[in-house]
């Protein structure tokens, strides 16, 4: 906005300068003396304009190179302005120059010049005639003075003045000494003596007659001639007479002289005059054009300022700065445009703030849901509409045995079926079930993993946005617990209901034998003996079975202490090394194995059962090896004991149910050995599983928590 006063100020200066130049060109006398100053002022103004235009042009070029918004428009507008200003000015300039040339030339005419020369000549002739007359008069006066002594010269001169009509008569002696003088006192108080050149001329005996200009500007005739010596006056004297020019002649000659002088002057000044006018005209044109150019720059900038502002604002908005407000300093159309832009950005900023708020809300919800999902004990898996895995919470990863769930996220579910392990099995079954499911589905999946079979209860829902979410729980332990509880109850009942009648049966059988054996003949006695022995043996077997059940159903007695597993393994292994005829027992015991909190007797029973199980699996086979190894797993949190054999292995169909009562591949035994192992291990917070070895044979692994 500061530009407007500056612009107006410079414009006023330009107008004043142009006006003054016009006045000077019109020969206004009051400005003539300031002509040079004016020229200098114009020159300075010109330089200022050139500098201003240069600065503007430089700025424009820089903006053009930077491809600044509005720079091309500025260039076009400036060029248009300049062309519109220069074109008519140039036409006027050329036209004026021609007019000037012709106008000045038209002042001069050969005929006028000749006429003036003639007039001058005529004037000279006329003056010559008059001067000759006055010369004759003065010669006569000089002759009369020849016999007049110096002492009477004043009177004689006074008389002669009257006779000749002279205004001054002066008689000079040697060295131009004034002898006598008579003059019209109104004209001069002192005699006006001739110059040295005239005196020299007269000293040589010549007469001088000439015209002298007076300080008032008129002319007078001066006649100087020698006065011849006589007997009265032996020295040479000089007489000077001054005559006024007749008034009419004087006026005419003055006018002729003035006209000739003026014409000569004008004629001589023709060239400089033209140059001066041309310079003035060129200066005026240059000033006008340069001012127009500068004004064009200013105008274009002022006009395009809102557009540049708008471009800046748009760029800022594009970069996400919605707080950008453009300054509205005008109330025209462009000002309204800026105002509209400001309103738009204001609304955009409001909208963005609202979007941010809602995004924050969504983020919070999402974080809440994620926390919920992560801390949920149930596994949650979701698929997006395109069938890609979207969510896999921590519980799901734990249940499905996935180490790094993040690597699976975003991958197609179909592709994940080939991952292997429990997770692949889960995905495989899940996709099969989902394919046939409606909006909601319930399913029970059984997974086979490294640590045994897992049973999952799944609940799937189709999401409104497409895709599905599946929530599942590992119910293996629950089902197992239910089954174990059932078996424990059976065992307890068996112990109670069966064991009680067994003793009377045994006692009765023995009594029968004792009472009747002697009374019967040999054959019958033999039959009785065999029958009673069979009864007693079977009752004993049943007792053993019932005892085993009792053991299975027995609750822990709580003699828990820190047990060195390695030592326990060595003790038990020692017994079997001695007793096992064919099988070899090998131990691989980890040094620095932490102790476990356990009931040592029950743990010993576990080891006995495992050794028994391995040896029974080897049977009578040669080269049988029972390999026991202990290790620390899961960063020292668990103690692992594995008992492996190189026997025939466990049939695949039994692998899942191996630890259930009466699940056995052997003909001997109660079928409770491994069930008891599992029960004791689980009572100690551990896990147990069986697996077949690739090189043949089976391995049973127990893991117990290490004592802290």
């Amino acid at each position, binding site marked *: 906005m500061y530009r407007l006063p500056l612009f107006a100020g410079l414009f006023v200066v330009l107008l004043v300068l142009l006006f003054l130049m016009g006045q000077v060109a019109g020969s206004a006398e009051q400005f003539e003396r300031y002509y040079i100053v004016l020229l200098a002022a114009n020159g300075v103004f010109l330089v200022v304009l050139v500098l201003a235009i240069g600065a503007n042009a430089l700025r424009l070029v820089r903006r053009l190179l930077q491809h600044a918004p509005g720079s091309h428009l500025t260039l076009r507008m400036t060029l248009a302005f300049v062309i519109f200003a220069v074109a008519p000015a140039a036409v006027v300039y050329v036209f004026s120059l021609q007019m000037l040339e012709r106008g000045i030339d038209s002042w001069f005419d050969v005929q006028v010049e000749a006429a003036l020369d003639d007039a001058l000549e005529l004037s000279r002739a006329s003056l010559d005639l008059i001067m000759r007359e006055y010369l004759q008069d003065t010669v006569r006066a000089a002759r009369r003075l020849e016999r007049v002594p110096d002492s009477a010269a004043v009177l004689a001169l006074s008389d002669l003045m009257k006779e000749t009509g002279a205004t001054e008569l002066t008689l000079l002696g040697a060295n131009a000494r004034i002898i006598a003088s008579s003059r019209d006192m109104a004209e001069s108080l002192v005699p006006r003596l001739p110059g040295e050149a005239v005196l020299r001329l007269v000293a040589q005996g010549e007469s001088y007659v*000439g015209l002298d200009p007076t300080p008032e500007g008129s002319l007078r005739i001066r006649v100087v001639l020698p006065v011849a010596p006589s007997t009265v006056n032996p020295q040479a004297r000089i007489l000077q007479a001054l005559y006024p020019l007749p008034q009419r002649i004087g006026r005419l000659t003055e006018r002729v002289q003035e006209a000739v002088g003026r014409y000569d002057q004008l004629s*001589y000044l023709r060239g*400089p005059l033209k*140059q001066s006018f041309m*310079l003035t005209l060129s200066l005026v044109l240059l000033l006008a054009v340069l001012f127009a150019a500068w004004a064009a720059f200013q105008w274009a900038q002022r006009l395009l300022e809102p557009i540049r502002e708008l471009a800046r604002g748009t760029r800022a908005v594009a970069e996400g700065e919605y707080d950008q407000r453009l300054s509205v300093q005008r109330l025209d159309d462009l000002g309204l445009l800026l105002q509209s832009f400001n309103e738009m950005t204001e609304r955009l900023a409001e909208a963005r703030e609202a979007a941010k708020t809602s995004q924050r809300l969504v983020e919070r919800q999402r974080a809440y849901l994620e926390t919920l999902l992560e801390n949920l004990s149930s596994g949650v898996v979701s698929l997006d509409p395109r069938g890609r895995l979207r969510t896999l919470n921590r519980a799901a990863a734990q249940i499905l045995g996935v180490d790094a769930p993040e690597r699976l996220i975003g991958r197609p579910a179909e592709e994940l079926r080939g991952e292997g392990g429990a997770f692949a099995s889960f995905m495989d079954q899940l996709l099969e079930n989902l394919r046939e499911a409606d909006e909601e589905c319930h399913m029970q999946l059984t997974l086979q993993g490294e640590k045994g079979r897992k049973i999952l209860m799944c609940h799937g829902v189709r999401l409104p946005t497409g895709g599905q979410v599946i929530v599942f729980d590992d119910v293996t332990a629950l089902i197992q617990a239910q089954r174990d509880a059932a078996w424990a109850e059976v065992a307890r009942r068996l112990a109670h209901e069966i064991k009680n009648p067994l003793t009377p049966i045994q006692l009765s059988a023995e009594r029968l034998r004792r009472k009747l054996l002697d009374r019967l003949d040999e054959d019958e006695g033999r039959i009785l003996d065999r029958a009673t022995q069979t009864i007693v043996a079977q009752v004993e077997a049943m007792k053993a079975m019932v005892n085993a059940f009792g053991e299975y159903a027995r609750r822990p007695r709580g003699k828990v202490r820190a047990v060195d597993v390695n030592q326990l393994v060595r003790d038990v292994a020692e017994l079997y090394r001695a007793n096992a005829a064919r099988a070899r027992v090998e131990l691989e015991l980890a040094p620095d194995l932490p102790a476990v909190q356990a009931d040592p007797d029950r743990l010993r029973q576990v080891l006995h059962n495992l050794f028994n199980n391995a040896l029974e699996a080897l049977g009578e086979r040669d080269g049988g090896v029972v390999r026991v190894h202990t290790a620390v797993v899961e960063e020292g949190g668990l103690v692992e004991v594995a008992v492996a054999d190189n026997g025939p292995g466990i049939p695949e169909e039994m692998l899942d149910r191996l630890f259930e009562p009466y699940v056995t591949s052997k003909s001997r035994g109660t079928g409770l050995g491994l069930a008891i192992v599992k029960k004791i291990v689980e009572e100690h917070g551990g896990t147990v599983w069986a697996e077949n070895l690739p090189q043949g044979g089976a391995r049973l692994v127990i893991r117990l928590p290490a004592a802290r």
Partner: protein
Amino acid sequence: MERAVPISMRYIAALVLCGLALPVFADKAAVEGLRVYLDEGRYRVDADVHLTLPPAVREALHNGIALVFEVRAELRRENIMIPDSLVTQHRRRYRLEYRPLLERYVVTELGGARTVETHLRLRDALKAIGRIRGWPLIEKRQLDRSHTYYVRVRGELLLTELPLPLQLHAYVKPSWWIATPWAEVPLR
């Protein structure tokens, strides 16, 4: 008091400066016979300022252009640290014109006296303009004995008095720059 700069040096410096300021003087334009003398307790100056006109200027004169000359005599006091100061000056302006009707050169002294002289020859007219005789400068008693004074004289053509269209022309043409260098003489 000793002179800060010898007068000869001052003269040379003035010449150099004038030479820089006015690259071309009119031929032989110079001041001769500069003399300062005491007459009845007053210092007066005599000098002859020789001015000559180059052909271009003569042509202008013969074509009705009046030339105005200024002849100036200055009494200045020497200073050590600051530029010399002007004590008093006497200057006269003369208009020289050629009258075709009279076929004579007319010299009019401008100012109070307005004396008019006519000369048949231009040389005489210029000589009359440059003739300085008995120009009064200052009473002796008005001078301060503790200071050193000097008188300098110069004559020049005043371009500012030329007709306007000719002024620009004259400013850019060195042949129009008619001026004598300053001539100096110490006041004893």
